[in-house]
C-alpha cells in the first residue's frame, strides 16, 4: 500500500488488514476445500454419492460466525472512519474550489493556488465547493476523499498530515472530457515554513517584470486554468469556440435572445470570463462555462489578452 501520511492512515489500514485478513482466510480455505473435494469425490474415486439434505445445526453455525465477523468489520470500519467526521474547531481553513477541470485553493488571506500547500502536524479544514458538476477530492496518501457537490453548503473535509513531501491529489468523480487530467499535488511543509509562505502575499498580485514575455505569461494562465480543454488553439471546435484568429474578429452572438455581432476585444474577453452566459457565441450551448469571477483577476485577464493577440501573429 502507498505510504501513509496522515493521522487517518492507521485507522483505515487497520480496517483493511482486519477485513482482508479474514477474506484471505475464507477465500483460500474454501478454495482448498473445493479442490480437495474435486479430487476426493471425483466420480472415478467415489462413484456413489452419499445423500445428505442438510443440517440445521450447520446452517446456524455458518450464519452466526460470519455475522459475528462482519460485525467486527463494521466496527473496525466505523472506528477508522469516525475521526474523519469529527471536524476539529480549530485549524487552517482553506476553501477548495473545483471546476471542469482544475482545482484551486483559496486561503483565508486571499491567496489562491493550484497546488494545496499545508503545514505538517496541524489540522487542515477544507471547505469543498464545486462550480459546475460534481467533482471529488481524493488524496490517497492521506486516505481522505469527499465529493465536491455544487450547491451543497458546508461540505467539509479535514486531515492532519504527518509526513513532509508532496502527494497526488485526484478528482475521482467522473466530470467529463478532461477528468483524468484533473489532478494536482498536496505539498506538506514544516509549520514555520508554511506560515512564512502563507504570509508572503506578494503572490496575490502577479510580479510582472520589466520586459517579460507577457504573451507567455498569459499562456501559462490559460493552461493552468484549464481553458484549453474547451477552447482549441488550432481552429478546431472542442466544446467552446477556438481561440485561433479570434482576436479582433466580429463574433456572431446571441445576447438575451437577440442576435448581434460584437467585436472580440478586451471588454468581450472580460465579460466572457466573468459572465460567460451573457453573450452566447452562435452555434454553442449556454450553461457550459461558469464564471471565473474571483479566480481570474483583472490583471490576469490583461495577460490573457496579450496571449490571444499573439495568436494572430
Amino acid at each position, binding site marked *: *500500500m*502507498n505510504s501513509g501520511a496522515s493521522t487517518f492512515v492507521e485507522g*483505515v489500514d487497520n480496517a*483493511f488488514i482486519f*477485513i482482508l485478513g479474514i*477474506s484471505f482466510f*475464507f*477465500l483460500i480455505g*474454501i*478454495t482448498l476445500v*473445493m479442490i480437495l*473435494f*474435486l479430487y476426493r*469425490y471425483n*466420480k472415478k474415486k*467415489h462413484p*456413489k*454419492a*452419499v*445423500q*445428505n*439434505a*442438510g*443440517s440445521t445445526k*450447520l*446452517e446456524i453455525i*455458518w450464519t452466526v460466525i460470519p*455475522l459475528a465477523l*462482519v*460485525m467486527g*468489520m*463494521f466496527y473496525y*470500519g*466505523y472506528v*477508522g*472512519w469516525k475521526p*474523519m467526521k469529527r471536524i476539529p474547531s480549530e485549524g487552517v481553513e482553506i476553501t477548495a474550489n473545483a471546476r471542469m477541470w482544475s482545482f484551486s485553493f483559496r486561503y483565508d488571506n486571499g491567496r489562491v493556488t493550484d497546488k494545496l500547500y499545508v503545514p505538517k502536524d496541524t489540522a487542515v479544514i477544507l471547505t*469543498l465547493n464545486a462550480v*459546475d*458538476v460534481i467533482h*471529488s477530492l481524493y488524496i*490517497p*496518501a492521506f*486516505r481522505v*476523499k*469527499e*465529493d465536491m*457537490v*455544487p*450547491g*451543497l453548503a458546508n461540505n467539509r473535509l479535514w486531515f492532519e498530515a504527518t509526513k513532509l513531501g508532496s502527494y*497526488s491529489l*485526484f478528482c*475521482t468523480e*467522473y466530470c*467529463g*472530457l478532461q477528468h*483524468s*487530467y484533473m489532478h494536482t499535488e498536496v505539498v506538506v511543509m514544516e509549520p514555520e515554513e508554511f506560515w512564512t509562505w502563507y504570509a508572503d502575499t506578494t503572490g496575490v498580485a502577479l510580479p510582472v517584470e520589466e520586459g517579460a514575455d507577457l504573451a507567455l505569461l498569459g499562456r501559462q494562465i490559460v493552461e493552468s486554468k484549464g481553458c484549453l480543454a474547451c477552447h482549441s488553439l488550432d481552429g478546431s471546435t472542442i*466544446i467552446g469556440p477556438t481561440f485561433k484568429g479570434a482576436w479582433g474578429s466580429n463574433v456572431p452572438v446571441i445576447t438575451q435572445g437577440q442576435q448581434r455581432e460584437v467585436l472580440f476585444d478586451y471588454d468581450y474577453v472580460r465579460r466572457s470570463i466573468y459572465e460567460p452566459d451573457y453573450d452566447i457565441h452562435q452555434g454553442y450551448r449556454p450553461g457550459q462555462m461558469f464564471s471565473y469571477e474571483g479566480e481570474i483577476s483583472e490583471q490576469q485577464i490583461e495577460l490573457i489578452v496579450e496571449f490571444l493577440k499573439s495568436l494572430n501573429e
Partner: protein
Amino acid sequence: MSEANNAHNVSYLEYKGQYKGLFAWIFSTDHKRIGLLYLYTMLLFFSVAAILGLLMKTQLIAPGYTIMGPQTYNSLFTLHGIIMIFIIVVPGLPAVFGNFFLPIMIGAKDVAFPKLNLLSWWFYIIGILIVLTSQFMGDGPPDTGWTFYAPYSFRTPTNVLPAVFGAFVMGFSSILTGINFVVTIHRMRAPGMTWFKMPLFPWTLYGTAWIQILATPVIGITLLLIIAERLMGIGIFDPALGGDPILYQHLFWIYSHPAVYIMILPGMGAISEIIPVFSRKTIFGYKAIVLSTMAIAFVGYFVWGHHMFTSGMSGRALYAFSFLTFLVAIPSAIKVFNWVSTMHRGSLHMQTPFYWAVSFIFVFMIGGLTGLVLGSLATNVHVHDTHFVVAHFHFIVFGGTGYAFMAALHYWFPKMFGRMYDMNWANLGWGIFFIGFNTLYLPMFYLGIMGMPRRYYDYLPDFHGGNIVSSLGAWVMVSGIVIIFANLIRSARHGEKTSDKNPWGGKTLEWQVDTPPTLENFEEIPTIVKGPYDYED
C-alpha cells in the same frame, strides 16, 4: 391440426405457425422462442460491448494517447456500461433461461401472459434501437457513464436524451417480465408442486421478479426527471435552480442497487441447479438457500447508500447503510457454504457446466469478499470511485452473473438446441477465459488500493505496471470468449444431434421432457410428488 404439426410431438424449433421465416420468431408467443430471441440479441450486444472493453483496456496499456482520444474513451465506457448493464446483465438470465425453462421447470405449458411476454421483448428491442440512435445522431455519443449522474448528464452537450429514454423503455420490458414470472409461479405450478418442492432456479426468479416490479419504476421516474431536466429545466436535480444532485444519486441507487440482485440472484439459482446434478446429490440446505434468496431480495432494497459513502451524505446515514450492507453479505455467504457442502461426498462429474459452476464460486467469493472492503466505512473512503470498485463489480457482475450465464448456457444447451457442443473446445475456452479474467481484473484491485481513480483515460506513470498486466489479461480473456462462442455457434447449427432427454442426469422437470421440447412442453401436465433434487435411489 395435421399430425406433422401437432403441438405435442413437434419440436418447438420446427413447429410451423401462422408466420414463416423470421416472423415465425419475432411474432412467436412461445416462451422458448422468446428465450432464444433474447439469447441471440444478448450474444450480439455482448460481443459489441466486449470489443469496446477491449479497446478501452488497450488504450490503458500505456499512459497518454495510445489508440484514442479522451472523448472517444469517455463515450466508449458509457456505451460499454449501458449495453452491459441495461441490455445484458439486467435482463440476462431471467429473460433467456427464465423464459425458456421457468414454465418447463414448474410443469406449465407457457408463462401466464404469453403475448405480454412477446411485448416485453419488443420493448427491449425498441429500447435498444433508441439507445443506439444516440451514437449516430445529434452532438455525438453520450459521455456520462451509465450512471447519468446529475448535474453532468444535463450539462454535457452530447446526445444523452436517447440513451436515457432507451433505458427507460427497456424498463418496461423488465417490469413486464417480472409481472409475468410472479403470476406464472403463483398460478401455474403443476399439481403437487408446493412452494418447497419448486426447484431453486424458479425460486430465485421469483425473488428477482419482485425486485424487478418494485425497483424498476424508481429508475423509470428518475430517468424521466433527467429528461425533463434536460428539455425544460425543471430544476429537480439542478443545483443552479435549487435542486440537490445527491437526491438523484439516492433515487438512482434505490433502483440500481437492487438491480445488482436482479443480476446475481438468477445466477445463483442456475448454479444451485448445476451443482447437485453434477454431484449426483441432493442440494445441501434447500430451505436455507430459499430463505437466503428472499432475504437478499428484501434487505437488498435498503442498502443503496453504500454507493454514496463519499457523496456528502450525513454521517448517520453512512453508518446505517454500512450496517445494513454487512447484513446483506450473510445470505450470500450461506449460499457458498451450502454449495460447497453439496459437493461433499458427492460423485462429481467433471464436465463443462460444472467447471463453470466451480469457477463461479471462486470468482464470486473474491467479488463478495472485496465487497466487504467496500461496505466498511473507513476502507470505502479510500477505495471508493477507484479501480478497486471497477474490479469488484466486474468480479460480481461478470464473474458472478457472467460465469453463471455461461454455466447455464453449457448446461441447458443440448435441451435448447437438440445438439451437443464439442466438450474439448468448451473446456479449453473456459480455461483460457478463466486465466484471462483473473489476469484482467485482479491487478485492478491493486491499482485501486494504490489510488488510481476509475473512469480515467490517462494515468500517472506510477500506475503503469498494473495496467500492463490488466490489459494483457483483457486480450487473453477475449481469446477465450472467441473460442467459447465459436464452439457454441458452430454446435447450434452443425453439432451432433441428440434426442437424449437427460444427458447430465438431472432430476428437475426440464430433463423429463423431449429434447428439444415440444411446443407445449408436456403431453400431459405431470403431478409432482418428490422434491426437486431427489437422488435417493
